[in-house]
């Protein structure tokens, strides 16, 4: 089938994952210039994406799982490179790097699947784009959450002295987390509304008891968790550590949703 990844595309994805891993390891060791590895890795992933689109003669994104997971990996990796380049949180790749690797590996493993059942309608496209874009923001929020907990722990380990500047500050990480959750929440809201509309307006693989399906439950669970995170300015008891933990938990639920989506194919 033309829409399945070829050996060359898989090799490119594997090489991309290896380069991302190398970049993450070097970054963890505090080496300079480690952005080159993930940048080349993302270039290879993009090349695999282009070859895949060319092979199936369809340049529109998100047509199958290989395509969708690859786009997720490229977007998360791209945002990571941007944040590193800006110097906002140079160590963000310690968390996003493994996420990108997991997405690339998932693309290679689950990529051999049939195309999505979406149609070319505005509702379908809105649903597709919003549900796939929101995890990028939530991945970033979860990464900020992990780094927040690491930095908090380091700050409490007094004999070791102040942590290095590449972690940013607690305040910056909290702000990054909140901003990413706000963007992701808006996208997820659109994705859920359009998803409910689609499932009500036509027959889907979810069937008649669609609301009790794991994919839907997990999505709404993540939605509820992120709603709590957004509530933190009004309920300050949730801020700081709690917000970080909730962001990580919400992303885990979203990863569960993605895994269920793969399992359903």
């Amino acid at each position: 089938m033309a829409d399945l990844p070829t050996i060359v595309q898989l090799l490119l994805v594997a090489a991309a994952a290896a380069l991302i891993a190398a970049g993450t390891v070097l970054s963890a060791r505090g080496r300079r210039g480690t952005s080159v590895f993930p940048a080349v890795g993302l270039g290879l992933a993009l090349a695999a994406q282009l070859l895949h689109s060319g092979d199936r003669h369809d340049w529109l994104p998100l047509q199958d799982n290989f395509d969708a997971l690859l786009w997720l990996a490229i977007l998360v990796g791209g945002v990571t490179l941007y944040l590193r380049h800006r110097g906002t949180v140079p160590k963000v790749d310690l968390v996003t790097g493994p996420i990108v690797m997991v997405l690339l590996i998932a693309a290679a493993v689950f990529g051999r699947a049939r195309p999505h059942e979406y149609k070319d309608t505005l509702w379908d496209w809105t649903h597709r784009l919003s549900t796939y874009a929101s995890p990028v923001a939530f991945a970033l929020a979860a990464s900020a959450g992990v780094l927040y907990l690491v930095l908090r722990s380091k700050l409490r380990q007094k004999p070791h002295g102040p942590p290095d500047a590449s972690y940013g500050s607690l305040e910056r990480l909290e702000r990054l987390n909140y901003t990413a959750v706000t963007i992701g929440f808006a996208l997820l809201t659109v994705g859920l509304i359009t998803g409910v509309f689609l499932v009500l307006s036509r027959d889907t693989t979810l069937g008649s008891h669609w609301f009790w399906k794991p994919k839907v439950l997990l999505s709404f669970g993540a939605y509820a968790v992120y709603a709590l995170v957004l509530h933190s300015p009004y309920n300050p008891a949730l801020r700081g550590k709690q917000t970080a933990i909730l962001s990580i938990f919400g992303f885990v639920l979203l990863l569960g949703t993605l895994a269920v989506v793969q399992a359903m194919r």
Partner: protein
Amino acid sequence: MNDLLLIGLNHTTAPLDVRERLALAPQRAFDAITAWQQRSAGGNAGGGEVVLLSTCNRVEIYLAGPVERGAVVDFLADFHATPAAKFETHLYERHGRAAVEHLFAVASGLDSMVLGESQILGQVRTAYETSRSAGATGPVLNPLFQRAATVGKEVLTDTGLGDGRVSVASVAVDYAKRIFDTFSDKTVLCLGTGKMSRLVLQGFTSLKTGKVLVASREQSRADAFAAKFGGRDFSGGDLSIRGVTMDDLDKHLIAADVIIGSTGATHPVVTRERFAGLLKKRRYRPAFFLDIAVPRDIEPAVGDLEGVYLYDLDDLQGVVSQTLAGRTGQVEVARGVVRRHVDAYAAWHRQREIGPLIDALYRHSGDIAKGELDRTLGKLDLDDSGREQVEQLVHRVIQKLLHGPVSQLKQAHEPHNDSRGEGQAYVHAVEKLFNLRPPTDDQAPHGQTVSDPTADDHNTDTDDHG
């Protein structure tokens, strides 16, 4: 290099009141250099090149040329209007290689009161620039100070000597920067008006803090302390600083993001119970407590509260001690770098000394060859190709004849060659045998002598004379 002289005093040889007498601000240093030059022109003393390094911990004068210690002491006494007896016994003196080694160690922070501090490197550069702008540097001090800057930079960046923080205030600021991103919207509350409060506050005001509250039991005392900052932070920007009393402490604790405890109270001023009751009113904002009081102002249990980051004097001094211990471990590495550069500089300097002689030797041989060639070629009927071949033949003969003596000359001037006398004997022999008078340093081209000492000295490369 033997013409190089260093005379100075520092924190190990002179007490503060002596150092104060001789210390010079940059503009005064310029005036002192100018005065030294005028004095030299008047025939009163030495002359030559001079760099004056003056910091709060040292005053050093680097001189190149035939200068006597007495002339320098007299100058310092006259310029500062201070009897020489007040400082002369505190002075140290270094010559030649020892002076070079001392300067490189100073630029590297190895000779500083706080080992590995990097400020001295900037001060060495400033001192050199001041002298250069006064036209007081030349072929000896230009390359020496340029090399010193390189050595200092290499030691501070490539060894661990410059790593970490070495003052309680700087460690505190580093911690604060890991908690907060911006400080213009933050409030710093300083409990107490002691000297330590002032030192730590200096660090925080340099972060362009939004508001500073200084709390004391007496309003007048708090106001007086606040007034000392003069409404300006240490970068010259406006600083909102206000004195408050301890009566409204809860209100100030709610407003504050950074709380510095520095009172002389015998019991904790901020207890866990007190601060826990304020958390909700603070909307659970992070609080950075810095307890530099002994006995402590902040109950240690306050640090267990969520969102509270509490550091006491032991925590901060522990980091400082770790830094200093780490730096001490790097001293030998740093000294190794300094020694390597001193050797390289000495080698370059020796090569530079014999460079003009080798130049003269080749020039002398070239002149003889040219004269003979012109005479002989005029008698022969040769085409251009033939003339060229004969010229090349003569040049090759000169190269081969001089290769041995020049190599021996260079070898005798290698830094690892201890028999400096042998080198000098060769120099005299060559001068005598070939009737050469090499140009002195003063006659040497300026650009050549100030070039980077790390660069190969092309004057000693026989190929360039071929």
